[in-house]
């Protein structure tokens, strides 16, 4: 997530043509744009085109299949009504509150744990080469693979609780995965397990990129280890925080299979995230309009969070 360089080096600005240039050299000038064009066109069609399509569908009465007659914002009215149904919670209410809890905890814990592990690993650790892949590997596995193992581990009758009971700690109690009020936190645990190693790698890379002389200077200035990290190192890692945030935000939004594989939706649907809601309504309940409307709300939320960030990062700085 790099910022734009101070001086943007323009080799062939588009607003200037070379009057006497031959067709061939004009082709050469256009080459970069020609190379970029397919990717850009694909993005426009297959991302933004589809977003428009989704927005359109959300204003129709689409059920099992897309229907193209606009019938008004009924889907949004339903979502809006559900937004405030907290007793008993509507599926939509559950999904968005879960998104808040999950999104915040998942991103926060991943960042904190990733940074913490990276700092520990950066202390000239023998066996770093062995530990690093151990922390990283969860990212390599699909949750179809690891979901079962996690489900067992968190199941009070099979996993941790039972094991500790067998070992003699009979008062130990850990049944979050069965509890409607806590199941979302088990999703956080599994999610953190999956992504925090990757974030650790990003922070480790960031730490390795910090000039050793700055650290020396701070030590000479009498900074304690804690002060060194809090006042010098962590501020220097700001760009990594931002990149990690983007990666985590995108993973959080797409955490669909995590919920399904781990909890099958949780007791009474209490583990749903908006992506589950969207999938359920679009594909399972044949209420495509509502599914599309929820997708639009999701995209709007993402836009509200990501676009200001992208804008501040990508805006061309004055020369």
């Amino acid at each position, binding site marked *: 997530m790099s910022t734009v360089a101070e001086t943007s080096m323009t080799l062939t600005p588009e607003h200037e043509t070379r009057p006497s240039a031959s067709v061939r050299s004009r082709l050469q000038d256009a080459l970069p744009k020609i190379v970029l064009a397919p990717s850009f066109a694909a993005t426009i069609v297959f991302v933004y085109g589809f977003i428009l399509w989704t927005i359109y569908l959300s204003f129709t009465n689409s059920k*099992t299949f897309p229907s193209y007659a606009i019938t008004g914002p009924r889907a949004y009215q339903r979502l809006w009504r559900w937004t405030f149904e907290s007793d*008993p919670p509507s599926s939509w209410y559950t999904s968005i509150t879960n998104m808040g809890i999950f999104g915040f905890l998942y991103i926060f814990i991943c960042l904190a744990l990733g940074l913490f592990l990276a700092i520990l690993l950066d202390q000239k650790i023998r066996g770093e080469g062995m530990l690093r892949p151990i922390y990283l590997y969860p990212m390599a596995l699909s949750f179809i693979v690891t979901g079962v193992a996690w489900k067992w581990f968190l199941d009070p009758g099979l996993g941790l609780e039972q094991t500790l009971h067998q070992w003699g700690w009979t008062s130990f109690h850990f049944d979050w995965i*069965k*509890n409607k009020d806590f199941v979302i936190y088990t999703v956080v645990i599994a999610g953190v397990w999956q992504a925090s190693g990757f974030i650790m790698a990003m922070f480790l890379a960031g730490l390795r990129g910090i000039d050793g002389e700055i650290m020396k200077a701070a030590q000479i200035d009498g900074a304690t280890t804690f002060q060194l990290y809090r006042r010098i190192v962590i501020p220097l890692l700001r760009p990594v925080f931002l990149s990690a945030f983007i990666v985590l935000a995108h993973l959080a939004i797409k955490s669909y299979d995590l919920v399904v594989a781990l909890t099958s*939706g949780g*007791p*009474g649907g209490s583990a749903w995230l908006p992506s589950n809601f969207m999938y359920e309504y679009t*594909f399972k309940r*044949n*209420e495509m309009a509502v599914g599309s409307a929820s997708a639009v709300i999701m995209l709007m939320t993402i836009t509200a969070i990501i676009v200001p960030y992208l804008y501040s990062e990508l805006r061309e700085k004055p020369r």
Partner: protein
Amino acid sequence: MLRKLLIGTALASGLAFAAHAEDVKEVQMLHWWTSGGEAAALNVLKEDLSKEGYAWKDVPVAGGGGDAAMTALKAMVAAGNYPTASQMLGYTVLDYAAAGVMGDLTETAVKEGWDKSVPAALQKFSVYDGKWVAAPVNVHSVNWLWINKAVMDKIGGTEPKTFDDFVALLDKAKAAGVIPLALGGQNWQEATMFDSVVLSTGGPEFYKKAFNDLDEEALKSDTMKKSFDNLAKLVTYVDPNFSGRDWNLATAMVIKGDALVQVMGDWAKGEFNAAKKAPGTDFLCYRFPGTDGSVIYNSDMFGMFNVPDDRKAAQVALATATLSKSFQSAFNVVKGSVPARTDVPDTDFDACGKKGMADLKAANEGGTLFGSLAQGYGAPPAVANAYKDVVSKFVHGQIKTSDEAVTELVKAIDDAK
């Protein structure tokens, strides 16, 4: 490497197209029967077709009780690549038929006499606008109790005939230190059990009014409230770790004797069979107390798609084989369900199967054969899922009282209609 791959795949597809000139001796079949017993059952059909010279192109997509397969089907239909046939449930068939993507098997149906042999309740889903669009494979019935005989003997229980009997039986088991009721806390399992509870509490007329006709008076009646209270009572007999459990694990609890009884559709019998348990000696199958004489059903259907002409012959062969008496018998013996036509001999079936077939026939004739709302045969998926939401929220405590449950049910169903 890349070039080679691309050319290779291109060539492969080229060859596939080249064969289009004459009839394609191949059926493409989308389904989610991937586990041992089900796959074995389906293999019978594959064998039957291969005897006639048709190749079987398998498109299995497991997961979520067909959710993943239905998503794949939707994508295939959107792409215009219809499979020859797909496993489908209830209202989904009608939705696809309304979208005009299903084929027409009426000719074959007339020839084979399906109109007479297939129960009318099933024809509601396999016939659209006067045309046969799907071949029913089986009939499942959901209002069953599955009981471990050893445990039953130990606690000295007898077949419960009423809901109160049932509760008394469960109390006995509880007193004996056995988990009385094995339940998987997933919304479809809870709702499937609730189908039976409603039928038991309100009787056949009430069930039909509430869960097939979606009559608002019935939905918000005191009978429905009573049903929820009964459900709440049953849930008190469930072990604390039930939430999220897969249904087959619940069945395993009964098989192993950890639990006394499970309320589940007749596919549970497949689990007993796989564990080499015999009906009558190892386990018992009773109708859910107070529902004898009625059958709440669901059915697996093979929806037949509007395939190109050169694939129609294969499709007809598939449909004919599916509804042939020999396959209906062989398949359903393995699967635990009963045949989708009422004129199949019951000789190969076990005691539970025989009872199931007799019950189906009686219910069909007596007008007490009802679609299961939980299984998508009572109302379209939007309604069925809204219903499952409410039941599950009630079981897990998001909805606290039966009054509230009834209000929510009416609201949710109204919303989804």
